[in-house]
Structures are given as C-alpha cells and as structure tokens.
C-alpha cells in the first residue's frame, strides 16, 4: 500500500525580551542556577503576575508577518499540572482565545515548487524551569532561571506531507522570527524548539490516521530524522496488522529513534481555566498599526526585490534571504561594488564556504562586507583576476589586511602593460618553436598551452583578456 504522511508542528520560540513574561527578572541565558528567579518566578505565596508588554508586541509582530488576525481580546489561562520545575503548579498560557489567529507561510520545496502552510494560531505562554538529574546523587536539582521566560507557541495546520516539508516550514518560521528580531533562534540553548505531530494514512484516504506527538526536538536535522523514523515505525505497525496508538514520544538523537513517553490514558487533564490574576488582554487597533510600522522587510518580499532589483536568479535570491544578516551582508557588498551577481557569487561561494568550514555565522565573518566589496572592486577594475582574488580572499580571511594591502604586499597586481605582456609572449614563442609549428599547422588546441606558459611566466598576473588578444595576434601573425 502507498502511505501518505501528515505532519503538524508546534514550535516554541523564546521571545527576545529582556525580562520575563510575568516578572521583572532577567531572561539572560547561562547564569548560575536560580540567580535569575525572582519571587514571582519562584511562585512564592501571594505573588502575582504582571504581563510584559514587550512580549505582546512581539506576538503581534509575528501575527502580522504571517497575515494573521490579531485578537482584539485574548485570555490567559492556567494549565494545571504538578512538576517540580513548574513552581506554581500551573503554567500561564493561552487556551481558548489566543493572541494570534489563523495565518500562513509559504515554503520552498526541493523541486522548486512552493507550498502554503497554514498556521492555526500562536499564543503567549511562560516557560517552565529545568530539572537537573545529574550531579545530585539520586536527587533532582531545580533551576528556575528559565521559569517565566516568554514563549510564543506557533501551531501549524497538519499541512505537511514529508519530513523535508516539515524542516522547510520550521526553517521558514526560524528565519521569520529572526527577521522580526523577536527570537534569537538559538536551538542549542532551547530558544527555538518544536513538537511534531505525525500520522500516516493510506494515500487517497481523507481521514487522518492516529497521531503520535514527538516532544521537544531542538534541531532541523533531528526533526527530519525523528519524523522519518516515526513514519517508518507507524507504517511498520500498520502493515503488520497493528494499530498506531495516540501517545507522546521522545526522540533519542543518539539512537536515532523515538520511544514512548506516555500514552493517552496517562495524558494530563490540565483543567484549563481563565487566570483570574490577569485581565483579558485587549489590543487596540492603533497598537496593531504602531507595531505594523516597525515590521522589517520580510524574507518573501526581500527575495522578490533581490530578483527584480538586482536581477538575481530565484535560487540566489532564496539562498541570500535565508537570514536577515546574510541578506544585509550581501546587500552591503552589492551596493558598494555595484555588481550584484558578482557579489552574490562571492557571498554564496567563497565566503559561505569559508564560514561553513570554520563553523562561523555570517555575523562572525572575519571578512567584513566592506572588506569583501573592496576585494570585488579590484576584480571589477581589473587590478586582479578572479582567480588571484581567491588567493587575496584567503589572505584577508587569515587577517593579513584588506585587499589592496594584500595585493600590494604579495605583488599580485595584474599586468595590463601590453609591452610587458608582449615581451613575455615573445619569449614563450621563441622557447617553443615545435609547438608554434604544430599550432600554425592547424592544432588549435595548443593555444591553451601558450596561455598557460605565459601565465606561468607572469606568475598568473597577466590580464587574461589582454593576453588572449595579444597571443592570438602573435601566433596568427
């Protein structure tokens, strides 16, 4: 039987506010345990939550970016369950009335097609703390620094049909929240993570199959692997005559498998009800407009502009707009050097290659956009050839100074003096009478041999176009 996979994602994006969603404590990552947990975060008797307006603005920003309805009135609800890293015994979240309603994003598929993925809703909630199971000898340590950190939970429609689509969607949301500067997107620190709801059904069947929820996946690679494993597991179960059970599963990246965490019968009854400590969140139309005015150019619009304005191919525009920082870098280089395609080639080629190899982000590049455009300017004004430029780039990457300095120090300036090139050509021709005879006898291919010899004699610095022209004259003359 042919099976169809159905995937929906719940993405948790940690909002980049300085303080927590319901208290004034700092959200900075990596502090000593429990040093960034105030009375409110500790759930002390008598304390009360006060909503962080910055978190609300960020949620609105996201909603506008996915063309969603911003709820004029939304409600915070308590999700009740006991866990040691949940200080109050309930999490403040939104349940029936979320702040962001239905919206959508467009993803790019590998075959060049695009697909619209629906976003059911996005709501604000607080994160829990962390339970530390190591180093406590049979006990559990609790770190409440993370408790109360604002999260935006972004719930998709079950619109994805493969792990690759799920990853493309997740990457799209990742790019979006970073463009909007509402989340740092740091997956290792848990600032961006997701739960995947996965089911399979016979191709052509309308009804969904029974789903399993895979919890807390914190990398694109793991999302793809976890979903692929889970899909195969479910198909195996079904083809073996069994039934998929509704359950929560965990992905184990070491073993590359998912395993059951709790079944439906053990699922919590969260006893949601409106939090009486917080008034309904009312958002005025002018607040929404004020936030709209702060929206940056979004990835899709930027990509179109790169195609229209710079004449870049779709592919280049897509790659270069994957992150706001990369796009900004490209644009700075393109503007400074005036040749967008050349800039695109270098940013996507030499630069990205070097960054990948070194494991660096674009923002950490040792070669700044100014420095790179300085190098490209020397290609454009023919001071150096593209080939020599790669050598210069490597020296710049290694901290040997800007392009002009490297060119000067290494003596890489291109030879454009015709008489110098002619002299070199004459010497080569004189030294290779046999090849000259063969060439003149019709062996055209030997032209390349002469180019190589002249380049060798000039240490690669002869201007290639001039060399070609002069060599042709001499050989044919």
């Amino acid at each position, binding site marked *: 039987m042919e099976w169809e996979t159905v995937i929906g994602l719940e993405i948790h994006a940690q909002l980049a506010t300085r303080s927590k969603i319901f208290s004034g404590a700092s959200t900075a990552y990596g502090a000593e345990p429990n040093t960034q947990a105030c009375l409110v975060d500790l759930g*002390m*008797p*008598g304390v009360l939550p006060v909503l962080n307006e910055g978190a609300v603005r960020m949620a609105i920003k996201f909603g506008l970016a996915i063309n969603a309805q911003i709820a004029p009135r939304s409600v915070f609800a308590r999700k*009740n369950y006991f866990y040691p890293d949940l200080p109050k015994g309930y999490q403040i979240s939104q349940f029936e009335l979320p702040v962001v309603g239905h919206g959508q994003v467009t993803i790019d598929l590998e075959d060049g097609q695009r697909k619209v993925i629906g976003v059911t809703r996005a709501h604000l909630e607080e994160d829990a703390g962390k339970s530390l199971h190591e180093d406590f000898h049979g006990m559990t340590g609790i770190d409440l620094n993370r408790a109360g950190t604002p999260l935006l939970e972004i719930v998709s429609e079950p619109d994805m049909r493969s792990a690759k689509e799920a990853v493309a969607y997740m990457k799209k949301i990742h790019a979006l929240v970073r463009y909007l500067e509402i989340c740092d997107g740091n997956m290792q620190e848990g600032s961006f993570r997701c739960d995947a709801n996965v089911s399979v059904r016979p191709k052509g069947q309308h009804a969904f199959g029974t789903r399993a929820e895979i919890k807390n996946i914190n990398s694109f690679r793991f999302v793809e692997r976890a979903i692929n494993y889970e899909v195969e597991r479910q198909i195996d179960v079904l083809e073996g005559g069994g039934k998929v059970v509704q359950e929560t599963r965990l992905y184990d990246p070491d073993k590359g498998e998912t395993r059951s965490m709790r079944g439906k019968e053990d699922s919590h009854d969260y006893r949601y009800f409106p939090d009486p400590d*917080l008034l309904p969140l009312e958002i005025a139309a002018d607040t929404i407009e004020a936030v709209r005015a702060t929206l940056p150019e979004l990835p899709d619009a930027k990509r179109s502009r790169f195609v229209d304005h710079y004449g870049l191919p779709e592919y280049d525009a897509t790659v270069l707009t994957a992150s706001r920082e990369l796009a900004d870098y490209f644009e700075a280089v393109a503007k400074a050097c005036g040749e967008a395609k050349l800039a695109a080639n270098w940013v996507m080629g030499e630069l990205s290659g070097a960054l990948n190899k070194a494991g660096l982000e674009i923002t950490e590049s040792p070669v700044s956009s100014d420095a790179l455009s300085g190098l490209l300017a020397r290609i454009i004004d023919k001071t150096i050839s593209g080939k020599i430029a790669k050598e210069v780039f490597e020296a710049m990457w290694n901290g040997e100074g800007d392009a002009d300095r490297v060119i000067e120090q290494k003596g890489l300036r291109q030879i454009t003096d015709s008489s110098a090139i002619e002299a070199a050509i004459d010497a080569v021709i004189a030294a290779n009478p046999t090849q000259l005879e063969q060439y003149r006898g019709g062996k055209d291919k030997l032209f390349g041999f002469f180019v190589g010899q002249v380049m060798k004699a000039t240490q690669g610095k002869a201007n290639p176009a001039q060399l070609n022209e002069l060599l042709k004259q001499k050989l044919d003359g």
Partner: protein
Amino acid sequence: MKELHQQSVAELAAGLARGDFSSVELTEALLARIAQHDDRLNSYISVTAERALEQARAADSARAAGQAGPLTGVPLAHKDIFCTRGIRTSCGSKMLDTFISPYDATVVERLDRAGMVMLGKTNMDEFAMGSSNETSFYGPVRNPWDTETVPGGSSGGSAAAVAARLAPIATGTDTGGSIRQPAALCGITGLKPTYGVVSRYGMIAFASSLDQAGPMGRSAEDCALLLGAMAGFDERDSTSLDRPVDDYTATLETPLDGLRIGLPQEFFGDGLDGEVARVIDEAVAELRRLGAEPVEISLPNTALAVPTYYVVAPAECSSNLSRFDGVRFGHRCDAPRDLEDLYKRSRGEGFGAEVKRRIMIGTYALSSGYYDAYYLKAQKLRRLISDDFRAAFAQCDVIAGPTAPTPAFRLGEKADDPVTMYLSDIYTIAVNLAGLPALSMPAGFSQGLPVGLQLIGNYFSEARLLGVAHRYQQATDWHTRSPDGF
C-alpha cells in the same frame, strides 16, 4: 482620659499628635493586654513584640522630627494571610507553619510606610477557608462576647482581637464574607472594598477573583482612616484599579436625608433568626429617623449565590494552592521515597480537612467533561447575580440587611456539617461574586451576642457606606460596647 486600649484609632492618633502618650507607651500597653488576655481567645498566631517596639520607637522619632503622618505610631494587627518579611506567615496552616516570608505584602508595606506599628499576626481559618475560625492549624479563636462561641471566619482572629481591645484595628480579607461575618459576630465594624481597590500582592490567594482586603475596626471612622492608607493602585497586581484613592474621611458627616435604602426581600425570609431580624428592623428604623428612605427591593438570584460560590472559589483555590507542593517552601514530608510520595504526603500532611475538601471540589469542577456544567455555568450565574445588583441600584443607593443569619454559634456546632456552615455566609457571598463593596457594623444584641447590619453599595461607594455607618454610629452606641472581662 479613656484607657489607651479603649480608644479608637481616631482618638489614639489625636492623643499621639498632642503628645498625651508615646507610641512606645501605647504599644507596651497593648502588648501587655495581649499577654494577659489572649490565652482565652487565641486571636494571635504570632505576637511580634520586638518588632512592634522597634516600629513604635521609630514612630516616636519620626514624630519628634516633625515627620509624623495621621497614623504614625498607631498599632494594628495583620491577618496572618499577609506576607510579612522576616516573620512567619502561616495562613493558619501547618503547610506554612515554618514559612518566613522573604517579602512584604503591598498592604503591609503601605501601612508600615504610614508609620503604623504591627503588634502581630492574627489567627484565621486555614487559607481563609471557613466561617468559624475552627479550621486553623493553630486552634480555634474564641469569641470574646462568649468564649464558648465562635468569632466567625475566616478573619476571626482580627475580629476577636479588635472586639477584645487587643488591637485598636486590624486588617482582614474577605472572599465570601470573611471580614463582614466575623465583624458581625464580634460586634465590630468591617469593610470589604470594591474588588481591585486594595492590592492583593502579598496576600496569600484563596480565590483570586473574589479575594479583597479591608479594615476591621471599632467604628466606620476608624475603618475610613485605615482604608485610606491601604487602598490604591499597585502595579504589581494586574487586577488592582488605577484610580485615585478617595478621601474616605471627608464625607463621613454627609447627612442621610433622602438616602434610599434597599431592603432585599430575599434577605429577610426563611433561615433568618428572629432576634437578628428584630435587630435589623430596629437599625433600619434608626436609619429612617436619620433621614433615609427604606425601599423594598429584590435580588432574585440570592439563593444561587452559595452554590455558585462553592464552584468558583474551590476551582480557583484548587489551582492557587498547587504551589504548596513541598518542593520550594512550606511543609515537606519526611524522607520522601519519590516525587509522587513527596507530593502526596507533603500535601496530605500540610493541609487540613476543609482545605482538602475545597481542593477536591475545585479539581472536580474544572475537570474535563465537568467544566461546562460547573465552572462555566457558575460564571454565567455570577453574571446573573451581578445583574441583580445592577437592577437594585437603579432603585436604591445602599442595600441594607443582616450580615449573618444568626449571632455567633457554639464552637463545634457546625464543624461537622459543611453545608450548614457554608450557609452562614448566605448574605455576604453574592457581594464578592459581584465585586461590590459592603460593610458590617454592630446594630444590637441577641441574647448577649452582637448582631451585625450589612450595608452593600454600588462599585466604589466605600465612602458612602462608611458615611452611612458613621452617621448611624453617631446616633447609636452599639459600636462602643466591649465584652466584659477584656
């Protein structure tokens, strides 16, 4: 000069201002009375003598430096539901018997800043759940008018302490009548303000949408003085209202001429003790003599108030009390085997029977499959009850009636019958569901026990209620009576 403990807050403030006595002398006198009499009442859980004397000395210095405010140096007692930094804040529960609060409630902070002197923390029903002060981990409070009877609850300690002159005034909290009912049973004046007038920050939550703090004193004037210092917007409480604080003392003398007093027929029917009814009738007659005009009104959904309340309040408390899990503070069982054991035994040992009963009712009411039938239905009824009051206030300015159906009942009389106990709040509960202000003041006696008259006002009419009560108290002397033997 009246003995210090017999003086009202207004009188004490004047005496301190004139220099008739110092705050230290006053505080010492009251601490001595507490030491002498409180064994018979158990109205205090903690007496904070050292801190009180320290605050009194500071108050006297402030006065000497010309920096005294109207309440500087006046002692008071706080219900043990308010967090007090460095001092045990027990909420009447074993769960918090060892809990030393790391911070002050807003109410405590404001009254400290006003220069008031905290004598101690008063006894209360466990987590404010009770109407007789018998659910306290620290034992029942006794009513100073008859120590075989209850003082009411949950602010029974505050009411008994003020009635027995062991504190000039005290703070209380009222979720379903917890200020007004003990005020009535102990013969004092107590006001529950409009929801949101006094900050809830640092007040240990029972039912967040109903809880409201207020003053419990000997007179309306004293309550007006204390409320003025307690009230006001607090950015730490999202449900606190951002509006200027009224001057509650400025309008105390407003005559009652033409004041329409609504008498809800539902407050005078079955279940009301005959003697209590007689006292209330006489009080209404007195108000009429003072110029008020009684009008018959109806609050048709009154009978729904108790059942509605006993869904809403337990639902909220079941969630509010989840934080008492033995993990970070409060009672933790010995040698827990695992997490579940830690939860079960810590909570099982730390909470008393009434608290557990309400947690279970609330958990049930919020459970999937029951939520609509209970919690949502209760929210709808809550709206109907509010609508009753809205309609009533189109016909009258203030509603009057009994605070409680009976005077103080005997200790143990209703302890094993929760529903009968719950019905002792039948006249007070609807007010919390609607978020309205209401007060109770002494209006006479039934067989030697005080009877309270309840006045309910429209939103933000605290000043009006206090004014009506003040005029009544100027014409009567019920509020000046104090129990024999104290």
